[in-house]
């Protein structure tokens, strides 16, 4: 059977793939001190892919027999990942160059991961999802271990690898059952197939859904599958930690959103309690453990776990009511996007600090108000935003989730909202640990901290973006609304 392929629809992926090959080849021909050229080259590829994605705006296409789809959801996430790629690349340049890493390989791996990210939101097929997810993770194992001389980095890579492979195996096992039960891999066909099951087969389907959810729970570091994340983030190079905390996690959520809201929507009564448990456990554990951290990346890792708990909450709000589901879906999308902005900003600051203080302890932030005022103000804002306090974008992110929770109503909705509210208050305590150091303590040496221009730029842009989202959340919320998968709006 010969299919006609819509090359325009897959153009962003094609450009990225081409760039990946070029970066790897060019690296071999560059003299050692020019190796950093790989970064502008990668940047060029990412920008070109973004332009290609922009040409698809407003379109709905599908190719490969509906396994690959371009719609609002896919485009929003693609642009998000490509923007994240630009930022992570910008943070990497000085860090990777000065750290004496293999630069060509690094950018090759990073771009490959991002290719997986970009592929993810278009994948409407179990196997495609799996491939995309592994494309994100596999280069991640290597990147996490990129600081080869540091045992913590080795630990990071190994832990990430073992957990990643385990979760992939569990997930794939679940998918194989689903294929066995329904004979389908396309998500909408799977949904139809599952709808006809009953009795023992239905029980098997439930077990299969469990496996898939557990696999994704590892990826998005949800409780009780979160333990690898802090160690991995801490050991990995800081830009890689930023990638793992934002892009990799968002990719996991993008996949999970498609699976739960499209393929498994009919079984929501079974999995809603599971997600309620995951969400509550994740936010509580993340917040409580974050309070005791002394190292900034670990703090951000636990904060990221708590934030994952918030993002999981809308999953637990799913009912038979299509309109309420739409709200929950949009709330999750909006939260992921805003989370990306604030977390990338925070990691940018950490990248700046880690150049001189490689340990990046919270106490290393002492007096930054005087040594690097822009970074200090930026960091304060990102953390205040993560806590969900105005005047920042994080405030609306939380409001949207609360709104979805209260809209769903019922005891579950209200309780989830209350638990999330209490958790947000708890989180203020540890988020404020860092501004406290920056603003209230005296620096070790009272001289300006050298900060790479790209890092400063990223911090400034993230600050402006968060403020803009706070003042004018409407366009932003609309993007989230447009990203709702059509099948959700139609009632699954």
């Amino acid at each position, binding site marked *: 059977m010969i299919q006609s392929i819509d090359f325009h629809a897959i153009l962003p992926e094609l450009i990225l793939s081409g760039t990946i090959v070029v970066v790897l080849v060019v690296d071999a021909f560059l003299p050692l001190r020019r190796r950093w050229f790989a970064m502008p080259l990668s940047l060029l590829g990412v920008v070109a892919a973004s332009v290609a994605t922009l040409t698809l705006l407003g379109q709905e296409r599908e190719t490969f027999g509906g396994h690959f789809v371009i719609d609002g959801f896919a485009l929003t996430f693609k642009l998000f990942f490509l923007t994240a790629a630009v930022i992570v690349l910008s943070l990497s340049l000085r860090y990777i160059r000065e750290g004496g890493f293999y630069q060509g390989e690094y950018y090759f791996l990073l771009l490959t991961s991002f290719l997986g990210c970009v592929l993810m939101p278009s994948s409407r097929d179990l196997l495609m999802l799996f491939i995309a997810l592994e494309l994100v993770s596999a280069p991640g194992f290597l990147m996490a271990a990129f600081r080869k001389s540091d045992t913590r980095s080795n630990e990071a890579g190994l832990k990430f690898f073992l957990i990643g492979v385990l979760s992939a195996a569990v997930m794939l096992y679940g998918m194989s059952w689903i294929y066995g039960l329904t004979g389908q891999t396309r998500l909408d066909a799977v949904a139809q197939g599952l709808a006809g099951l009953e009795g023992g087969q239905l029980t098997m389907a439930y077990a299969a859904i469990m496996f898939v959810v557990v696999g994704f729970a590892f990826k998005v570091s949800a409780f009780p599958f979160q333990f690898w994340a802090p160690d991995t983030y801490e050991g990995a190079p800081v830009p890689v930690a930023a990638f793992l905390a934002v892009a990799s996690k968002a990719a996991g959520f993008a996949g999970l959103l498609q699976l739960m809201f499209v393929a498994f929507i009919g079984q929501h009564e079974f999995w809603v309690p599971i997600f309620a448990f995951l969400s509550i456990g994740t936010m509580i554990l993340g917040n409580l453990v974050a309070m005791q951290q002394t190292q900034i990346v670990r703090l951000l890792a636990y904060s990221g776990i708590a934030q994952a708990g918030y993002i999981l909450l809308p999953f637990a709000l799913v009912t038979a009511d299509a309109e309420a589901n739409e709200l929950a879906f949009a709330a999750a999308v909006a939260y992921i996007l805003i989370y990306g902005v604030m977390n990338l900003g925070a990691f940018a600051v950490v990248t700046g600090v880690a150049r001189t203080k490689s340990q990046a302890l919270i106490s290393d932030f002492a007096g930054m108000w005087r040594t690097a005022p822009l970074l200090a103000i930026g960091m304060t804002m990102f953390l*205040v935003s993560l806590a969900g*306090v*105005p*005047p920042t974008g994080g*405030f*609306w992110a939380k*409001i*949207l989730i*609360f*709104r979805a929770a*209260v*809209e769903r*109503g019922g005891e579950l909705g*209200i309780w989830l*909202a*209350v638990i999330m*509210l*209490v958790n*947000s*208050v708890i989180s*203020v*305590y540890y988020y*404020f640990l860092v501004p*406290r150091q920056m*603003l*209230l303590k005296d620096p070790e040496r009272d001289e300006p901290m050298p900060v790479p221009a790209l890092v400063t730029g990223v911090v400034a842009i993230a600050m402006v973006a968060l403020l803009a989202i706070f003042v004018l*959340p*409407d366009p932003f*919320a*609309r993007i989230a*609304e447009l990203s709702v998968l059509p099948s959700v709006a139609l009632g699954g």
Partner: protein
Amino acid sequence: MTWENSAITITTLLPLVGALAILLVPKQHDRLIRGLGIAVTGAALVLAAAIAIGFDYGRDGLQYALDVAWIDVIDVRYHVGIDGISMPLYVLTFLLSFLCAIYTWRFVPQPGRPKALIALMLLLETGMAGTFIAFDLILFFVFWELVLVPMYFLIAVWGSANREYAALKFFLFTLFGSIFMLLGFLGMYFRSDPRTFDILQLQQFAQGGDGFSNGFQLVVFGAVALGLAVKVPMWPVHTWLPDAHTEAPTIGSVLLAGIMLKMGTYGFIRIAIPLLPYGAQKYAPWIGLLAVIGIVYASLACLAQKDLKRLIAFSSVGHMGFVMLGIATMTEIGIQAAIFGMVAHGVITGMLFFNVGSIYDRYHTRAIAEIGGGMVQKMPKLAVTFAFVSIASLGLPGLAGFWGEVMALLSAFRPNEALGLNVGLFRGYMVAGGIGTILTAGYFLWMLQRVNMGTLPDRWRDEALDDTTTVEWLAWVPLLLLIVALGLFPRLVFGMTDDAVATLVGFFGG
């Protein structure tokens, strides 16, 4: 855009713009920064005064209103306006901020950095002023939360020894309360028909026959009242206040006591009671009870304080108790009393904190025992102003503190029976509140005796302690005049609030 519909937006956002402008000034230009602070707050005050003058006091309802879509997807509107209830508090916000800016011309507490101090103060000003003009629940909440971050830093950076603890406690307490308030707001949104966050529309909805169900009102009023009560603060959720006040720098205390506490009581009058009348009615006896417990508890606590600033802080809890008692009666006179009490407390206690700040500036201690008395001999002007304001605070007739308290007690004599409030119970509250006023007089006079009177201890005899300076006079004179003016002409406030309160009470059946 006309002056009519953009005036309060411009006025409210002016300090924010000023804050950004100040951030752009290099920190070497110290005088320029402080001057800009005075100029911006001064200009905002002039605009606020123009609004107050242009306000048509004979007309009911919102004026200077602007209602435009802000976030369509969740029906949040930018709806601002001003009425007789908002007006006195709105103007007071700009007045106190301006005076604080003047005070900062000379006094910048450790560790300096006037640029950041003034920028935060301006941000705070926008947040506080915005709360009093917001007529959309979410907009109200945004402004309400906007004050948290700058106040946290004011306390945490420029406070005294135990500042970090106090700042975090303040932040967590307020945030904890306000998130329940937010949940209540969302609940009201979903139960209203058509769905809206607009306070006026919700008010109409609540007034209509098919308003919120009784059970719903009981739950939501509880959630909203919790958030508001933390801010007021009512006993027993007041514990953040003595710490925050004691540790905060002078201008932080002035703004905290002078305006931020009123955001809580204002919320009761503007939102909790008119939107959830049944809930309010059922909770009123309990609110009254907590209010009088607060009054008596605070005055007893004041008698036991060794720290001058902490004493004033506790006295705030007592005074806000009177305000809450007035609100709990749900009568026109009670709510009038509450608003007057808010303004009077803002002026008087703001002034008291200025005084205490200056006393600390001279003695470098706030311990009453270490000051040891005899201030009249050493610094007669400062001592006399301090005595004058303290006496105003204890409610001497003819000064500002009198009307709010006596009318609150009067209203408790005749609570709103039509709403089923128990007259005997409220008369009991009145008696307890009356005992509170006596205790209040007691601790203030005793404090004056220990600080102002007596012989000057030897350790201060040869110290060069300056009496009140020009900058202080500039910051204080308007407040001192207001204390007298409000005492002699209470119509200054009642004239603004009369009609608006009558309309409001009409909503829940007075």
